[in-house]
């Protein structure tokens, strides 16, 4: 049975084990983990970048978390956490913990790096014109850090989509089912189909986040703007624009 036949088989598209259902389950795990990671890591990264306090913590913690082996962590979490939860949650909670741990470092480090990378004169100006510290953070530092923040969320999401397959290892649903089950049944076509689905989902999520980035990030930060002819005669800026240029260069 080859891959195309496998996808063409209507039986694989319906029911609780069908592709749509597993994709949704997979996305649900990813979305919950991403949301939790953002809630934890984004404010922490922003505040650490703003105050400059705890920078060592960011580097140390992020690297330590990255070094954890996902599968080992999953088993440890199941052993430690499962007894405290009943039924379904007994495996879902440990799996989500593992995924959150995975997603926190890229979001934390990028949020921190984004704020730190705001040019010092911009920060000085923000304070100097009379913004309060929270206004500096929310109306200047965060919008300026947004490209890096979103890129952190993107890399976290990619890792989540690929790693959420481990949920199947502890008997949960998601696209990992096809891989784990396929391996158990020596059904390599099914395994391959699972891998292809994960890859497609990753690309789709990436595309969605790129659109989000376009919508959220100020055009002033993207470097896609055209420079204007300069009445001061500064040659560095005198790139002639054929017509009054639109907000974004093609």
């Amino acid at each position: 049975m080859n891959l195309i036949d496998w996808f063409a088989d209507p039986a694989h598209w319906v029911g609780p084990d069908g592709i749509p259902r597993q994709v949704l389950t997979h996305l649900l795990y990813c979305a919950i983990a991403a949301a939790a990671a953002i809630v934890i890591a984004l404010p922490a990264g922003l505040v650490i970048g703003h105050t400059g306090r705890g920078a060592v913590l960011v580097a140390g913690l992020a690297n330590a978390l990255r070094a954890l082996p996902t599968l080992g962590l999953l088993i440890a979490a199941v052993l430690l956490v499962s007894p405290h939860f009943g039924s379904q949650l007994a495996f879902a909670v440990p799996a989500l913990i593992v995924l959150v741990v995975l997603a926190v470092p890229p979001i934390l480090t990028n949020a921190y790096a984004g704020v730190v990378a705001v040019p010092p004169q911009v920060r000085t100006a923000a304070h100097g014109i009379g913004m309060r510290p929270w206004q500096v953070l929310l109306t200047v530092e965060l919008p300026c850090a947004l490209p890096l923040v979103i890129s952190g969320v993107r890399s976290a999401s990619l890792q989540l989509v690929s790693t959420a397959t481990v949920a199947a290892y502890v008997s949960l649903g998601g696209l990992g089912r096809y891989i784990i089950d396929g391996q158990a049944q020596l059904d390599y076509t099914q395994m391959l189909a699972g891998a292809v689905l994960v890859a497609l989902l990753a690309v789709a999520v990436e595309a969605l986040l790129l659109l989000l980035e376009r919508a959220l990030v100020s055009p002033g930060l993207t470097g896609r703007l055209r420079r204007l002819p300069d009445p001061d005669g500064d040659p560095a800026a005198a790139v002639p624009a054929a017509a009054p240029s639109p907000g974004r260069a093609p």
Partner: protein
Amino acid sequence: MIRFDRATKAYPDGTVAVDGLDLTAPTGKTTVLVGPSGCGKTTSLRMVNRLIEPTSGTVLLDGRDTAGLDTAELRRGIGYVIQNAGLFPHRTVADNIASVPRLLGWTRRTARDRALELLELVGLPAAYADRYPAQLSGGQQQRVGVARALAADPPVMLMDEPFSAVDPVVRARLQEEFLALQREIGKTILFVTHDIAEAVTLGDRIAVLRVGGELAQFAPPHELLTRPADDFVADFVGRDRGYRALDFAAPAALEVREENTVRLGASLEEARGAARDGWTLVVSDAHRPLGWIDVTAAGPGTAGPDPVGREHLVLGGTTARGAEGLRELLDAALSSPSGRGAVTDEAGVLTGTVTPEDVVGAITAARAEAAAQAAREPAGATTDRRSQAPAEETA
């Protein structure tokens, strides 16, 4: 009025950035803080809007101790311009300018109208309102920076090396515009620079600080140039201070000489007829000086400048606008290839020429006059005349 009263900033490691500064920046005037790196000029400036808190002493704004005020509210009432402008890259030009009005709770509409007004005031087209800072040159960004500082019409402005990061040509223009703007709006300005030439050009009074944050001299520019308080100030003010002080000398009583001229397109024969010492001044139809022509330039067998075209002009000389600014007159005379500096009226129309000897004679006369006047008047009175039109290129 900004008053520093024994303001001191010392850091825990023992470094003293500013040491007991006593200084009053008068209302409606530009006071310049100038000095080498590490003299505490920026620290002093930042003590006014409390980006840096003094460790002892006080800074008073119109008699009120700033230490008792809410920092954010204090800063919203003080215009602040910094090097590289520090514009918010994610906001449009108009939104940048509207920053302080929005902080003060103005409506979006009112703030935007005000931003457009200011854009015009600083000489940028209204079409720039919706551009982003990354689309502007350094000079344009700095204009927006000035507009942002002026948006809420604060009585006091702090300017921290605002023109240091732009190229010299743009800087000269920004300085010129700054003077024109300040004549119009009359803000109380505290201006920091490391460039003594800029200080002398822009300041009504100049405070020279030495490393360690100690005030070395506080005086109007002319006095600083002619009577430095000590070796440090003399050294810092620089070698060509005698030349620069000419800007502040009394108006010269100088007769310009008549000059024979030819128009563009004249024949070489005409140019030869008009020449003195081998050089003829070429003017436009409106009688503005264009450049000099060397009537002896044609070698044997070559055509020479016939008829006289733009490509034959020697453009090295500057022109002096009006026959009063001694520095401009001397510069025009010295830079002219013929040794005769072109002098024009306010509209740029040629009135005649001067030689270096003429100008030096006028300088000597002005000195004698000043000395005589000093003998009649009590000490301390200084003239504070500033040339309004800078030397222009060509001719």
